[in-house]
């Protein structure tokens, strides 16, 4: 059966451009300094296309999709 996907991030690559929060606000919002706060857990199927766009739209390629229950 298909695993559910979650949004993972490389915190060192992330430079706080904030494009992700624009593209998938259901899962990502920005803190006071423009860095993403990512909702843990599975991405709802209706939101998945937006999450994919956010992943490919990240200027530093810091985002990725990973199976749920991958820690860190």
């Amino acid at each position, binding site marked *: 059966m298909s695993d559910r996907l979650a949004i993972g991030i490389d915190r060192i690559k992330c430079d706080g451009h904030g494009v992700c929060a624009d593209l998938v606000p259901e899962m990502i919002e920005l803190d006071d300094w423009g860095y993403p*706060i990512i909702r843990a857990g599975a991405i709802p199927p209706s939101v998945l296309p937006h999450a994919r766009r956010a992943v490919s739209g990240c200027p530093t390629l810091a985002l990725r999709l990973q199976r749920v229950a991958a820690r860190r």
Partner: protein
Amino acid sequence: MSIALLAGPPGGQGMESLSPHQQRLGALPAVPPALIDSIERSNLRGKGGAGFPVAIKWRSVASQPGGAPVVLANGGEGEPLSRKDRMLMEQRPHLVIDGAMLAAGAVGADEIVLYVGADHVGAIQAMHRAMTERTASERARLRLVSAPVRYVSGEETAAVHFINDGIALPTSIPPRPFERGIDGRPTLIQNVETLAHVALIARFGDDWYRSLGTGNASGTTLVTVGGAVPQTVLIEIPQGMALADAVNAAGGITSDSDAVLLGGYFGGWVESSTAWGLPLDADALRQLGYSLGCGVVAVLPAGRCGVVETARILAYLAHESARQCGPCTFGLRAISAAAGRVAALTPTPGDLEHIQRWAGVLAGRGACRHPDGAAGLVASALRVFAAEFQLHEHDRRCSVASLAVAAS
């Protein structure tokens, strides 16, 4: 305890050489085929702070594809309040090397890196001397590496990063070191105290090891006791011993105390009334919502303000951030600045609320656990010193006479 990590010649006499070590404990045994099973039954957990079950770690490394593994004996000890790793290496280097050899045998590693802080000169000298006393074939597999002493330089990926590229800063995962670490090979990273315990378990068995603990706890553990005690001391206690008993063994408290810092800078504050009865056992503490961390017990003396001490620690943690991730670099810095203002009785309106909010979104948002540790410390301080924080922010008063102001 007749056999334990620190038993034997008193610490003041320096390192225990190979000959007395072998006379006392017997020669290094060959790696028993079921060593990992024995370690598992002994319930040994890592002593670096994370408390991860040792047997599971070894099995993970042993089963990795990707070349012969490497063992890294982690004596980085960046925690300023902790003394155990450097003193263990200084006094019982052969226990550490024995443990590393056994680990290497159990996971199929052909190389061992002994990772020591460059400032810990006594430890470096002792480990170096101890290496010269080993057999030629053992020496061929051993490498001593000294790294800059910073708070994060003992972090697993930072240690690997330093050995690979000369920079002791954490890296992002995946991959974790047990998958790909030194030279891209599976790397078993184990705190030096953990390896010392392994050296004894391999000789005397897991039944013996379990019997050393109190109640359900197994084995002994090294604890650095400081603060309101006659002097900072390193003691070895049976796991499960009550915190108050450990403090008494360290000389007893020299003043009243409201709170204890348990686990180090990335541990947390505990109100003394609760702290005295806490069992010093990693498992039990975790279940109660606390952390033994790297075995630091620091008793807050009377006359020292918890808010001021917390601000001082946060300033240190903010300074020691690897500065690679935005949330830690900016968030922790802002928390530290606000805490400093509150401590100095010059708060900006909203500082406490900001601290709470920022600390609430700090955990899990860095490449390593540095921000998590800081967030935990802040949360515990806000709980334990709640009244004092309110006093500082709203009334601009400190209930403690001395105002040693934190530098922010």
